[in-house]
C-alpha cells in the first residue's frame, strides 16, 4: 500500500482552515459539487497518470473501510 508523507509542512493548518472557509455557507449539495471541482482541478495539476491512479487507490480503501 502507498504511504503518503507530509508535504504541506508548516502550511498544513493554514491550508485546512482555508479549505473550511471555502465551504463556509454552502449547502451540502454545493459543498459536494465544490469538492468534485476541486478534485478535478487538483488532478489536472498532478497530471501524471500513474501517480493519479495510485492516489485514487489510496483514497479508496480508507473511505470504504472507515466510511
Amino acid at each position, binding site marked *: 500500500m502507498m504511504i503518503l508523507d507530509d508535504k504541506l509542512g508548516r502550511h*498544513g493548518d493554514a491550508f*485546512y482552515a482555508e479549505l473550511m472557509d471555502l465551504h463556509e455557507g454552502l449547502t451540502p449539495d454545493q459543498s459536494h459539487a465544490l469538492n468534485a471541482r476541486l478534485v478535478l482541478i487538483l488532478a489536472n495539476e498532478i497530471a501524471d497518470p500513474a501517480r493519479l491512479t495510485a492516489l485514487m487507490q489510496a483514497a479508496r480503501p*480508507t473511505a470504504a473501510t*472507515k466510511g
Partner: protein
Amino acid sequence: MAYDYAPFPYVAPPGLTAPEARHKVVIVGAGPIGLAMAIDLAQQGVPSVVLDDNNVVSVGSRAICWAKRTLEIFDRLGVGERMLDKGVTWKVGRQFHGKDEVYSFDLLPEPGHKYPAFINLQQYYVEQYLVERAQALGDLIDLRFLNKVTDHRDHGDHVSLQIATPDGDYTLETDWYIACEGAGSPTRQRMGLPFEGQTFEEHFLIVDVEMEQSPFGDHDTPERWFWFAPPFHKGQSALLHKQPDNIYRIDLQLGPETDPKTEATEEKVIPRIRAIVGDTPFRLDWMSVYKFRCAKLDRFVHGRVLFVGDSAHVVSPFGARGGNGGIQDVDNLGWKLARVIHGRSPAALLETYNQERTHGSAENILNSSRATNFMTPKSAIESVFRDQVLALATDHPFARKLINSGRLSQPCTLRGMALQTAAPDAPIQPGDPLIDAPLLDAGRPAWLIAKAQGQFTLLRVGHDPIPDIPGFARIGIGHSGDYPCFEDPQGLAAERYGTDHLYLLRPDGHVCAAFRHTDAAAIATAYARATTGPRNDDP
C-alpha cells in the same frame, strides 16, 4: 489532598487616611500576569503597587500547562525551579480516534535544555509561588489584597484611580497604569475598547479528579492524551492530563446545546468520570463548564494605560496559549517600561511592546482558533473532512499532521520587527528567542539562558574573545576572558549558535542582532535601534 486556599492578609492602605505620593507603577490584578509583572519590574529596580479585589489564589486549577519559554522566563523571575520541582514534566502527546491511537508527537526530542517542553502545575500553585516571591521583594512590591479598582482616568502625564476596600474608598495617582485584570477587564470596559473575535458555541466540561491509580494505565510517564470520538464519551472529544498531587485534568466536549448549570453538578459529572476510569476510587476536586472565545484588543498601549495578559487577549485553552502568552507579554514589557521609567529610553519604546505582543497574540489566536475549529466542526461538511483526516491518519503521515487538537504554545518570533537588526546568515535569527544549552561554570553545571537573559548582553561561542564595549554584559562560551566565561562540555552551544557570530541579546532573551565582524560602531547602532523604538519610516 485538596489545596488549602489560605487567604492573604488585608492591611488597610495608607491612602485611606492621607493622600499617597504619586506612584511609578500601579498594577491592577494579582493573577499570574500582574504578579509576574510586579516581580519583573522589581528585579529592575522599579517599585509598584499591586491591587487585587480578591484575597486568594486562583480557585480551581485553570491554567495547568506551562511551556518551556514561560519556565525560562519564570526562571529569571525566581520561581522557575520551584515550579519544575513541583510540576509534572511531560513532552509526548497522543491522539486517539475512538479507542485507537493514530498519532503521537514529542515536543522536545533533543536533550540539553534546562526546562522541558511542558510542565503541568495548577494555577493556584503558580500564583502562590509568585505571591511568595513578590513578598520577598517587599521593599519594591506593595501587594494590596481586597483593593478593588472602581474607576480610573488618564490625565496625559499620570493616571488617577479610585479604589474600594473593606474600610472604604481612596484614590491613588500613578505614572503608569497596568491592567492585568483578566478576561473581563473592567478597565477595558470603562474605556469602551472593542474586544472582538470568535466565540465558540461548544461547551466544555473541565474536571479535576484526585485518584491514586493512574488513568494512563500502564503508561507511567505522564503525557497529553486527546481523543476524537472516545469510546467513553460518544461523538465528542476528550483530553487527559496529569497534575501534581495525583490530580488528573479531564476535559470533555459537551456540544452547544448544554445547560452549564446542570452539567457542573456531581450527579452529572460522576457518571461521566466513571465511564472513563471505571470502578477506580476518585475524589472530585474541581469542575466547571466553559464556552471559549478568542479575542484581542487592537492595541495594548493606550497612553499611560497598558494592557497585559488576559485583559489584552483571550484564547481557547487548546494549545495552552493563554497564561503562556501573558507571561511573554510581561517579559516583553518589563525591560522596556523599566528603561522608560529610569529615563534610559523614550516612551516610544513602549510602542514596540504594542507591536510585538499584538503580533504574538494574533499568532496565538490563529493557532487556538484553528484547533478549536478542527475539534468542533460547525457544519456537516466540516465533520466529513475532520473524520476523513482521522481515517487517513492511520496509514498516512500527511494526514496525521493535519489532526489538530491544539498546537502547543511556542514563543513567537519577532523577526523583521522594529527593534531587530537583520543578520541573514546567523544560525539564530534576530527576533528569535534564545535556545538553551548546557554549560560548565568553573566545573559546575550551568545553563546558557539562565546566564544570558535579564540585560543587554553580548554573547559569543568559540575562540574569539568579546571586546569590552561599555554598557553591555558579556557572556563567553568556549574561551576565557576577564568577563563571565563558560565551557561548552557537549558542544551544543557551538552547534546551536555557531562560532562565527557575536550575538546581541535583549533582556527578554531574544536575539536582536548578530555580527560576523566585531565592529563597535555596528553594535552601537543595533543597540540604539533596540532601545529607542520605531523610527518614522517603520510601519
